[in-house]
């Protein structure tokens, strides 16, 4: 019996004027979005390749004197995410590169500087189309699925037969959803087919799996909106009432809740700005360096104040034998102290930020759209996870460069009594060809699922809860 209803819903939708319009919309917009974003991705990839080449050329001619003079700044570039073709996410907001110096790392400019003001309203990509356009169409398709049939009287005709109401509901959802899914998937496949001639690595690595998850998540998302629409339709006596309710719910889920959640989280759990944190770290750095320079100057003056001339330059002199380990000990303690204090500042900041982000995520999960958006952005490697991985790679690369390059030069700054300053260097040889390469390891699919358990749970909730409500409403629905 369910099959009969599914088939009827499919036929009814296909014969209606809405279906060809929707199919046309999908077949035009989805491949177009992929095509346009693929061209953009190819351009970013070319830029990336060129910048990496130039950066490597510049590093290969690096000399230890440049490091001693503090002139070395090594750039680590982020490779554009392949699946940003489907979901731009943070792709253009993330820095294109980070710059590494012996004093730490700083972020370079992002690609968002090239964008127009209108891009702030949402970027034209596959996920945008699913979230903003197809979800609305799904809701509109479902708006009259029950109330419309009541108004036209066909629901009475149907239910005068030996037909359980749950079969009607499941059949209607199944058939209506299938009529949305078919053109949507066809357009998706067509879009992928159009990417192949442009050397899009469709079968490279885990790309096929990610694309399959993306298509599946999008299908589930459309189903969620179709079920929500059915729930509203089963709760209204008139199709027009359903329509008004649907538009209100859609704007709440799509436009209000996701944006409001970030604002509320910022109000409930405020976090210092990055500039404040950076200033705090600089203050710690300067204070410790000054204190260390003073201590080194005092000890140096004590040891070498009454020594015979040339003792400071003779490594075998008794004064040098005493000074060298003492200097290393003071510098090591200073380094450790600085590292501890800066780590504490960073950890506090990270904790506060994590708390705020978690709160924003939890609040936003009231909307299925936010849950879907977060999950698919991570699947496409342009979401929160990609940002975290990028920053982790930056921190790790800074450490690697400290060991392989910046740590090869030891500066000793001393502040003597009377305010006189002096600086000395100790340098080890550096092989610029063997410097570590900057790479960002993307999160695996399994990790992406693990990190997104809340979003997945929210999507499951939004699939089941409206169905349960729709079922209970339709069981008692007045068909007269």
């Amino acid at each position: 019996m369910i099959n009969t209803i599914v088939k009827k819903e499919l036929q009814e939708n296909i014969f209606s004027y809405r279906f060809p319009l929707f199919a046309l919309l999908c077949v035009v917009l989805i491949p177009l979005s992929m095509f346009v974003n693929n061209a953009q991705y190819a351009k970013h990839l070319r830029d990336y390749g060129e910048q990496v080449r130039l950066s490597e050329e510049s590093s290969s001619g690096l000399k230890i004197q440049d490091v001693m003079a503090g002139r070395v700044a090594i750039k680590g570039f982020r490779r554009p995410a392949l699946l940003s073709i489907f979901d731009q996410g943070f792709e253009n907001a993330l820095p294109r590169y980070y710059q590494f110096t012996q004093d730490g790392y700083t972020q370079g400019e992002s690609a968002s500087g090239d964008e127009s003001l209108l891009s702030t309203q949402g970027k034209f990509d596959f996920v945008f189309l699913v979230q903003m356009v197809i979800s609305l169409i799904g809701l509109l398709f479902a708006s009259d699925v029950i109330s419309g049939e009541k108004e036209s009287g066909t629901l009475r005709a149907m239910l005068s037969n030996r037909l359980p109401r749950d079969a009607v509901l499941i059949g209607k959802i199944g058939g209506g959803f299938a009529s949305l899914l078919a053109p949507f998937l066809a357009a998706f496949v067509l879009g992928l087919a159009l990417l192949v001639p442009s050397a899009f690595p469709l079968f490279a690595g885990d790309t096929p799996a990610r694309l399959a998850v993306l298509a599946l998540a999008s299908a589930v998302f459309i189903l969620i909106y179709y079920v929500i629409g059915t729930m509203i339709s089963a709760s209204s006596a008139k199709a027009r009432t359903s329509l008004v309710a649907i538009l209100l719910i859609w704007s709440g889920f799509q436009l209000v809740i996701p944006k409001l959640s970030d604002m509320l989280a910022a109000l409930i759990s405020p976090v210092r700005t990055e500039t404040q944190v950076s200033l705090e770290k600089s203050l710690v750095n300067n204070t410790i360096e000054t204190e260390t320079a003073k201590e080194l100057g005092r000890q140096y003056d004590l040891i070498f104040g009454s020594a015979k001339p040339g003792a400071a330059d003779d490594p075998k002199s008794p004064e040098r034998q005493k000074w060298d380990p003492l200097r290393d000990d003071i510098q090591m303690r200073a380094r450790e102290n600085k590292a501890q204090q800066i780590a504490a500042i960073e950890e506090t900041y990270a904790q506060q930020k994590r708390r705020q982000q978690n709160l924003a995520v939890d609040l936003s999960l009231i909307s299925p759209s936010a849950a879907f958006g977060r999950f698919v952005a991570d699947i496409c490697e342009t979401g929160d996870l990609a940002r975290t991985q990028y920053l982790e790679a930056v921190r790790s690369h800074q450490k690697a460069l400290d060991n392989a390059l910046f740590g090869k030069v030891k500066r000793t700054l001393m502040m003597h009594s009377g305010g006189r300053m002096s600086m000395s260097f100790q340098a080890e040889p550096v092989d610029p060809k063997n410097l570590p390469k900057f790479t960002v390891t993307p999160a695996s699919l399994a990790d992406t699922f693990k990190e997104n358990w809340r979003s997945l749970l929210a999507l499951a909730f939004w699939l089941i809860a409206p169905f349960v409500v729709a079922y209970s409403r339709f069981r008692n629905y007045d068909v007269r």
Partner: protein
Amino acid sequence: MTTQSPILKADDLSKRYEDGVLALDHLNLDVHGGEVYCLLGANGAGKTTTINLFLNFIPPTTGACYISGIDVNKDPLEAKKHVAFVSENVMLYGNFTARQNLDFFAKLGGKPNLTKEQYYQVMRRVSLQEKAFEQRVKNFSKGMRQKLGISIAIIKDAAAILLDEPTSGLDPKAAEEFQEILSELRKEGKAILMSTHDIFRAKDIGDRVGIMKEGRLVMERTREQLQYEDLVKIYIDYMKSEPLTA
């Protein structure tokens, strides 16, 4: 020739809506196989409520109704196997052809394997024009829709047929054709309960005629009794009489 036990039976059936309106007041009624029962009454008299109760679209407040001996309220799905329904404005899927509509409702009615020719035969039987068989229903006249509606009832081959003001708005020729089909169905042994405003049609086709007023069955006459009585006068007298609740 009617069946001994009734196919349709209302037993002390009452319905009071949530707003307090008593739509049906202790109705007792039975319709046997091979019999056409016409329910007459003004708007709001309880005719459609009676049909809605037989179709389990609403639950009764008290009493019960039975189709082929099955309590509709207790086992609605089983009861609906034995009943077909034709409404005043037969509502069909406008974007489907006549045959597609027939096919869909035949499957819902438990006839999944009928051939195109079988559908055509039923549509020929109700005198639907041949060229309309594969036309979309949205352009059909009311008479054509009504014929298709009765085709759906015929193809279900149920023991009982409920008709809610089926001739309302039909032109005389179409109404006449409709009446002929009902006569054939009666001959096949169907129990037919028809609500209508059309006193003349009721007198012509009804084996029994009941008049409803304010939810009560206030009068019932057989075809034989009506040969000697003026149904129009009886009906108008009842309509003009004092309200029952007053």
